[in-house]
């Protein structure tokens, strides 16, 4: 019995150090774990549909002229649907990294990862990739319910979809650093859900997910904060493409994309750096697990 097992360990195998394979491994494992939470998926799907219904009934009270003034068509449902669906998507992506970090620390699996040769970077990207894929399900679902269930007037032509997909990618990249930064906070404080929730509320508020940003112009500090949010630019581009059918030919969209790229270039290294600071700190404190 022993000897049979031993034979499998006698050969010297060269390790497969591919980073892509490591990221895939994390993604694969996390997705498998997610699949076991069926109740979650069902209730989340239900919640998504209900939340769209709420915005539909809210939209019945809104004066179309007020929305028209903002330059995004006349439908408040379309306006808020995009604002909320994409904000939720972002929140999902950002929250997933820190949330699974939290449970890995709680369950002791983080130590196994941290003592293995995998790069922390691969681990974080693998976690993020899972969030992006699962989040996509809810986001596409929300848009579909809005358009086919409540007649939100959105442009689903190939050019608009292509443009908005591109914006989506850069939106995610520009916020990934933030997600990794919050994961670093989780490492040190072991809990961050309240932080990510607050961040998402800030994003929704300052990017104008539910009201036209022109309304902030009377309050200069709020207006400035709004211009500093990367989500503001992503949302502008998404609304222009999905509500008005604007494409990459539009200068406004190119400008928004450029801003997102700048944020990605600044925030991503900053996020990874701060994560490493947090990682070294818990190794100094000896708190890589907490039970």
């Amino acid at each position, binding site marked *: 019995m022993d000897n049979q097992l031993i034979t499998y360990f006698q050969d010297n195998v060269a390790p497969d150090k591919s980073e892509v394979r490591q990221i895939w491994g994390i993604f694969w494992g996390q997705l498998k774990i997610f699949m076991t939470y069926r*109740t979650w998926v069902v209730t989340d799907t239900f*919640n998504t549909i209900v939340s769209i219904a709420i915005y539909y*009934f*809210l939209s019945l009270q809104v004066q179309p002229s007020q929305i028209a003034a903002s330059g995004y068509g006349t439908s408040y449902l379309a306006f808020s649907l995009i604002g909320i669906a994409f904000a939720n998507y972002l929140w999902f992506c950002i929250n997933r990294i820190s949330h699974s970090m939290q449970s890995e620390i709680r369950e002791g699996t983080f130590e196994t990862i941290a003592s293995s040769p995998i790069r922390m970077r691969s681990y974080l990207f693998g976690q993020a990739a899972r969030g992006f894929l699962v989040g996509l399900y809810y986001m596409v679902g929300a848009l579909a319910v809005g358009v086919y269930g409540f007649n939100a007037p959105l442009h689903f032509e190939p050019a608009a979809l292509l443009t908005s997909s591109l914006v989506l990618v850069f939106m995610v990249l520009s916020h990934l650093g933030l997600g990794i930064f919050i994961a670093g906070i989780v490492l040190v404080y072991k809990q961050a859900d*309240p932080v990510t929730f607050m961040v998402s509320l800030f994003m*929704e*508020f300052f990017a104008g997910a539910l009201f036209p940003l022109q309304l902030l112009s009377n309050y200069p500090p709020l207006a400035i904060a709004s211009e500093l949010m990367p989500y503001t630019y992503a949302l502008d581009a998404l609304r222009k493409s999905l509500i008005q059918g604007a494409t990459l030919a539009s200068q406004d969209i190119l400008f928004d994309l450029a801003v997102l790229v700048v944020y990605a270039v600044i925030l991503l290294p900053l996020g990874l750096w701060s994560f490493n600071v947090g990682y070294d700190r818990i190794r100094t404190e000896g708190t890589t697990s907490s039970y």
Partner: protein
Amino acid sequence: MESDKIIQMLQEPTVRSKTTLAEKAKAFIVRDFKIYWTYKFWVVFDVIDIAILVATYYFVAQIITPAHLVAEGYSSGDYFTFAMLGIAFSQYVQNSVHGLTEGVRDEQWTGTIETILSSATSYRSYLLGASLFRFLYGTIILVGALGLGLLIGGKVILTPSTLATGAVFALLLVSGHLAIGAMSAGIVVMIKRGDPIAWGFTWLTQLVSGVFYPLGLLPWYLKWVGFALPLTYSLDGIRRTFMNGETFFDSAVLQTDLVALIAFIIIMVPLSLQVFAWAYRRSQRQGTLGQY
């Protein structure tokens, strides 16, 4: 070893008197406060969260037409006040339902639920105790949210009689939601999953109880779902009280709301305790009480 001393102590006969309810309540509040205090900076997040929500609807109110509110009988037609009351009170009760299910879930995780339920404390006292601190804390946040709302332009009619009427509605709202909380805690004990149910319930109440819009905008079937929830009556009552200045004595609508709430509580409190007891016994039988 010091085992002699322990043995000596255990040899003294224990007088087991029933702890009074007030003492137990105090024990639970102190315990929850101490646990909460270890996360003290969360208070900041809770306050900021509700402030952002209130601010969001301050701006949403500016693009909304008052016609639907007026048609529904909220005579001022002030959407911001309408939404502020709706959000503040629905958050208040949702926090408590969430709080209870999360609390139970946490105790299942850490295994303390087995310790408590195997002690001399009944599950009724446990449920009540576990929700006390949440409600206390929720009340503070509620008052803060309403204060902020009034500061940035909410208009309410505050007289001794409207305050008294509002307080009655708030109290009934809390009692009704304690029942819902106990029921969902029972489900949590059974299926070992907290958040999805509480969230599902949150979204459903927001849809049908008229948190963001008057009920007149809902199709009849959703309106009927709303009529089964205490938040619907309480919100209507609270809004009519503070926006229109109505009281129990002069408003037939408020009287209806009051009767509906009392009926809900009479039916739901015993029923939900039954559900919890059933779920609890079931997991006892299956031996899955402390499982995660």
